[in-house]
């Protein structure tokens, strides 16, 4: 498509020079290192205690594994938070600033179609997000060497889920910021994706677990669930919970695991693909309608 490559290339150049993304990246990178080193230091201090852990009840290897689980658990949360922050930052700036500053006037007067412009912007935004979160994940993977092996694959699965969810958020902000102020777009997206969708997903999970007996209410949540984007979940979350439960004695593991979201199935993944197409189309529609 004529021009989309140039739009993508220079959008990436712009993103690489935006301080807010650099700040999020640095805070994320420092945070992950601090988390890893902090837990390792905790382990060293604890293992130097001749009485051992938990009055000798837990051996050093188990404690090391526990720390690794703790690190991975925090890491998942940190990655998800930073991926979302970066998605919001990119979504709020990639198209909005061109429209707001008047740069779009010069760009749209060139022989570039609105479709090529939207494709270039969305492409650059996705590549930018994957690059930044990917770098944080790579750093996290290196920090994991401090704890030995075992959960590296879990990180990969979770990273893909985190990025997939962040892409949806970014596309929603991108499309809304073409219509309205970018801060308002971020607030609306947060309410829609993190609050409304979160509530519907949780209630659907509760309904699925049989807590809600009324079939009609369950059906309502079933319908609502398929009207909102689904946050993808990797098997890592459940594996991690299972490992933690096993370590703590494995008591009532099935009941405890019921509250942990199950890994996303093919239906959820297909729904995610559909959602991405819908929101990308919405970005194009908004760009196409926009008069500058």
């Amino acid at each position, binding site marked *: 498509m004529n021009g989309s490559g140039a739009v993508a290339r220079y959008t990436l150049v712009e993103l690489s020079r935006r301080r807010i993304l650099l700040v999020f990246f640095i805070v994320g990178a420092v945070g992950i290192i601090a988390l890893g080193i902090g837990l390792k230091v905790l382990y060293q201090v604890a293992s130097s205690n001749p009485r051992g852990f938990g009055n000798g009840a837990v051996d050093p290897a188990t404690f090391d594994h526990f720390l690794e689980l703790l690190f991975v658990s925090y890491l998942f949360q940190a990655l998800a938070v930073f991926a979302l922050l970066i998605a919001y930052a990119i979504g709020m700036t990639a198209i909005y*600033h061109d429209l707001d500053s*008047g740069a779009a006037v010069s760009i749209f007067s060139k022989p*570039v179609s609105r479709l090529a412009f939207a494709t270039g912007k969305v492409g650059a935004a996705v590549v930018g997000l994957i690059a930044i979160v990917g770098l944080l994940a790579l750093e996290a993977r290196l920090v994991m060497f401090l704890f030995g092996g075992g959960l590296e694959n879990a990180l990969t699965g979770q990273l893909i889920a985190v990025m997939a969810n962040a892409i949806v958020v970014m596309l929603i902000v991108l499309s809304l910021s073409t219509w309205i102020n970018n801060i308002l777009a971020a607030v609306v997206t947060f309410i829609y994706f993190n609050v409304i969708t979160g509530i519907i997903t949780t209630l659907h999970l509760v309904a699925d677990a049989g807590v809600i007996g009324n079939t009609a209410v369950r059906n309502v949540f079933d319908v609502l669930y398929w009207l909102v984007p689904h946050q993808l979940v990797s098997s890592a979350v459940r594996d991690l919970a299972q490992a933690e439960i096993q370590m703590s004695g494995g008591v009532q593991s099935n009941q405890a695991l019921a509250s942990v979201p199950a890994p996303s199935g093919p239906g959820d993944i297909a729904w995610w693909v559909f959602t991405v197409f819908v929101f990308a189309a919405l970005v194009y529609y908004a760009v196409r309608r926009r008069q500058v």
Partner: protein
Amino acid sequence: MAAVVTVQNLRKRYRRRDPWAVDGVTFDLQPGQAFGLLGPNGAGKTSVVKMIAGLVRPDSGSITLFGTEPGNPVARKDLGFSPEDPDFPKFLRASEVLDYFASLLGLDGAERKRRIPETLAFAGLDTEHRQIRQYSKGMKQRLGIAQAILGRPKLLVLDEPTADLDPIGRRDVRALIERLKESGVAILLNSHLLSEVERVCDTVAILARGRVLKEGTMAEVVPEGSNLEDVFVQLVEANQPQRDHLPSFISDATP
């Protein structure tokens, strides 16, 4: 000779309750012709040129740009547009902006290498390495004109091109317009600087409240012994409500 741009009975308003920003504007522009679009603030001049550049959709009427409608990217291949108050992606440098736009224009690598330094030198930005966010209004205006001529257009639309320029910049723009005109490029000039329009334009249209009040060659619009400014002021004042020129707290003040 086929008209470069044909505008017929163009109408536009931005909200249903608003008055028409552009109301029945009709004109055409031939190759090598310099057409001046004049009018007071809010007359609808910028709306007209934005519709020609495919940036704003008309409510009714038609525009033909190089034989097709301006929404078609192909129609804009030979269009150079320097907007009023131009801006660019603020984290890029001038050379990057021109490279970006050259890519959108479909210029190959060799052509980009040749044109970009020359265009930057023309705009006086060849030694400027700061990002656009650090540019003054005048520097942005220079870059706005530079990007408009980068594709060697057959129609150059200049919306208040000299508003923020220093006298040397104004002289350069005048020379540019005259040189392009000689080479057959059609020029559409929006400007408040009537002396400038009088110097470079062959035909003019005076707009007020979206309507064309008078249109014709410079000789038809400006009678002998008069000048464009007098004609403009008379026409515009006759078509708008009378108003006191100074607020009473200024005019009534005793020294």
